[in-house]
């Protein structure tokens, strides 16, 4: 009995390592390649996110391989006296029958399915191009935080919420010419942008304030007499750099971007010989991040898809086989964008990573179905028979996997951080789309594109032409 048990566990171990380890490894490589697209983001925190995810899934893989499997083996090989029976494998469950019926329907309507999937995805991508981006950190965090309420109150009181700074440098910022230039700039900016600018301040305006609205004859002397604490906010110690602070109203990301662009060209226009100007400050950083997010997002998704394609091409050595798992992913990306557009959800730094995540998670499902499909095809089954088997067997597994992923992700929903709960919602929707895409769209794609993949027997081709 014990010897039998030992034999059994060794065989099971060998089979497990031989079959599932390569499959999971392929899925992890595809997922990792998808995540690797995150590295190219110009936003550092998204790069860090990508690094962490990639590290995490590889560590998970090795933990499974070197901890989980040895533990199971040890359990059965050395300790188990009796082998209990686990699941009854022969039972054809409700799920299986349901999947069977569903697959039949899908195959008979395959053109409609593809048309619907494609048109909704195209609509989604169109909408996605219009989706806004939210970068205001304050909208991400728990909204009932006292500190957040405090800062809003403070803003109501002060009137101006954000600041843009024009930093200028020259040999001596206190010489007559520069002071006059500073004065002109300080005053004209408020007049030039009356809707945005609340107040401006510079060493020139402070000098005027203390001198009945006129620039004094000897600005240098007066500035030297002023308290250092006041001066150092506007002019540096070496008197080579100065700032004009521009207090502005709280603006939408796109409006802010426009304003800063206008301000930059205005300042450049009025730049004087010998005076260098730079428009900077936290708001400028924010705008920079918005641009990074809006432009980088689509590139990231495309790059992810490209990377996975190259990876799969290297593994399968067949362009169509490498392309098939990606087609449903493209649909999901489109649908996901459509949802964002329909429900008017703005992208955050986190949801901007959704494309890469969808690729990572979705390919695992589609690869599993496809592999099983070609396994059955090689056994000599027709395309339709193969897809029926694949969807019935793997569909069940994919459902279980999907459920576990949903289980993990749903924890995001309860986060106090708006950015995380929104992201959780979107990932759940996307995992749901992945399931739909894998179980409903993938069979249609496989059946339609089967003719492009060389298979063993001619008989299969005949079956194909009859149905397709």
């Amino acid at each position, binding site marked *: 009995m014990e010897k039998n048990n030992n034999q*059994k566990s060794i*065989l099971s171990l060998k089979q*497990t390592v031989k079959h*599932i*380890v390569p*499959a999971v490894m392929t899925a992890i490589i595809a*997922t990792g390649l998808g995540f690797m697209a995150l590295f190219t983001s*110009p*936003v550092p925190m*998204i790069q*860090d*996110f990508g690094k962490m995810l990639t*590290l*995490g899934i590889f*560590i*998970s893989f*090795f*933990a*499974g*391989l070197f901890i*989980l*499997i*040895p*533990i*199971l*083996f040890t359990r059965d090989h050395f300790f188990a006296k009796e*082998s209990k*029976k*686990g*699941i009854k*494998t022969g039972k054809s469950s409700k799920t299986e029958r349901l999947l069977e019926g569903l697959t039949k329907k899908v195959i008979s309507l395959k053109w409609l399915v593809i048309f619907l999937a494609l048109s909704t995805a195209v609509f989604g991508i169109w909408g996605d191009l219009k989706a806004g981006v939210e970068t205001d950190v304050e909208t991400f*965090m*728990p909204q009932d*935080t*006292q*500190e957040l309420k*405090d800062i809003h109150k403070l803003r109501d009181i002060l009137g101006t919420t954000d600041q843009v700074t024009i*930093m200028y440098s020259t040999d001596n910022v206190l010489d007559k010419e520069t002071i006059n230039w500073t004065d002109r700039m300080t005053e004209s900016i408020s007049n030039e942008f009356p809707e945005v600018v609340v107040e401006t301040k510079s060493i020139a305006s402070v000098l005027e304030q203390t001198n009945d609205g006129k620039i004094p004859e000897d600005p240098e002397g007066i500035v030297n007499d002023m308290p250092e604490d*006041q001066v*150092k*906010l506007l002019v540096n110690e070496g008197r080579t750099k100065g*700032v004009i602070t521009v207090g502005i109203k709280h603006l939408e990301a796109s409006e802010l971007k426009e304003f800063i662009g206008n301000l930059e060209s205005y300042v450049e226009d009025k730049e004087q010989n010998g005076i260098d100007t*730079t428009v*900077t*400050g*936290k708001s400028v*950083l924010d705008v*920079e991040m918005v641009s990074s997010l809006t432009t980088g997002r689509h590139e990231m998704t495309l790059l992810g898809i490209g990377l996975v394609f190259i990876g799969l091409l290297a593994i399968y050595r067949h362009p169509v086989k490498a392309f098939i798992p990606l087609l449903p992913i493209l649909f999901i990306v489109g649908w996901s964008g459509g949802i964002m557009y329909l429900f008017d959800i703005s992208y955050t730094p*986190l949801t901007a990573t959704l494309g890469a995540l969808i690729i990572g998670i979705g390919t695992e499902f589609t690869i599993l179905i496809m592999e099983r499909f070609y396994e059955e095809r090689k056994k000599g089954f027709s395309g339709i028979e193969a897809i029926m088997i694949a969807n019935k067997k793997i569909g069940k*597994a994919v459902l*279980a996997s999907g459920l*576990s*992923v949903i*289980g*993990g*992700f*749903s*924890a995001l929903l*309860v986060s*106090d951080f708006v950015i995380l709960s929104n992201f959780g919602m979107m990932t759940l929707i996307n995992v749901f789309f992945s399931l739909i895409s894998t179980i409903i769209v993938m069979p249609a794609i496989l059946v339609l594109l089967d003719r492009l993949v060389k298979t063993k027997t001619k008989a299969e081709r005949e079956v194909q032409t009859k149905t397709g």
Partner: protein
Amino acid sequence: MKILMFLSEMIRKNPMKLIILSIVAVLLFAAGAPAMKMATGNETLIEEDTKAYKDNLALEEEFGGESILVLYEAEKSEDLLTIDTVNHMAGLEKKLGSYEDIYTVISPNTMINQISVKQSEKYKEGLDEVISGLDKMGSSLTDISKKLNQNTGGQPPGGKNIEQNLAELNNGLSKMIDGQKRLSAGTAQMANGYAEMGGQLHEAALNMQKVSEQLGKSLDSNPQQQKHVQQLIQMSNQFVQLSQKMNEASLNGSKMTAIPENTIKGLNGMQQGLNSQKATFSELNKKQASQLNDLKTLSAGLSEMGSNLSKMSENLETMVSYSDNMSPGLPKQRKTLDKMIYEENGDLRDLFSEVIVDDKYMLFIVKLEGNVDDSVKSEISGAIKEYLDDYKLEDVETMVSGKPVLDDAIRTSMKESMQKMMGLSILFMILVLTLVFKVRWRLLPLVVILLAVVATVGLMGWLSIPMTMVSMAVFPILIGLGIDYAIQFQSRYSEEMDTRGEA
């Protein structure tokens, strides 16, 4: 597929060793976890080598970084800027003095300090002028007396010299007037200094009075000289009055600026008197011969007066050198304070417009140095909160805000949120596994994944990848994805075991 064969052989031969080694590896990774940082700053939003980042860095290095703001809010405007609140702010500033990463503090309190420093500088200048004026007057009077003495000795009249000396006396008085003007500009709360000066002046004036009376007695024969004496007495009386007013002023800060003005008036009167004396002295010169005797007495009197004035100047100088008496400080009286913060027409001085809003709110702004570590920001905002909790004001509400405070709150809730998500993730996974995963030891994948998560966090510490608002989402995703792989392994293994069991 050699690798796979090798793998399964390795697991078959040394399963225990492999488990232990893997767990040791996990622990080694995990040791890096304490080094993991929470990052919310600019470096998480934008790459450090971009122009925008560098510009902002240059700005922060030169002109300071983010600001923490303390808001003081009062229902009634008269409760807002009071001695109490100013002292409260001074205390807060003192507490923050030990932090090196503070670029500057901007608050009504620092502004009042600025004003008072300026005032004290002006005041000292004024006193110095008064001192030198008194000194000049003293030595001039002594000289006059000397000359007069020589004249009484039968020498030819030195009227010209006396006139010159009188001119210098006049000059001294002018200096004193100038000095008083400066005092007037600088006066606000130098009560102590003013009181002492008043005392000194009083003493000197009494001496002068005495001298004048003496002079009057000795010169009673000549009505014209009597007139001069009267003028001198008047002068000394003015000094007495002046000193009294100065004393009063020191007691009542609000009248301070009026007082030097009165002093100036008094001194101007004295100067006029002196000018008429000058004229008289010229006349005196003519009658000199007949009045030698009288002049002797006058000279003695003037000499005493001169030495008195010199003494007074010396005393004042010592007084000024003990600068403690008039070191700038926060006003102790409401009226002095009002004088500093309001213009004469009752409007708030422009200087304060930055820190006082709508007469209801007052700001205490702590501007940090550029590129300050998150932990320092947390420490400073924590110190401010602690101070505000420890010292509460009666009619004024306080609140700390600003980006560093908000970021600090974000970091705190990030930690809380992560713990909550981890907990829930685990709970959900237990549920999913129990319901969906029908094998023995069905919770094993969860245990393995938790080890993997711990190792990942540790590795992030080792590689110094910070935890950002975005990467918080990693844990649920990792648990969700990772468990998927573990399930695949275990389910396949169980399937193999079962099929073999049935066979």
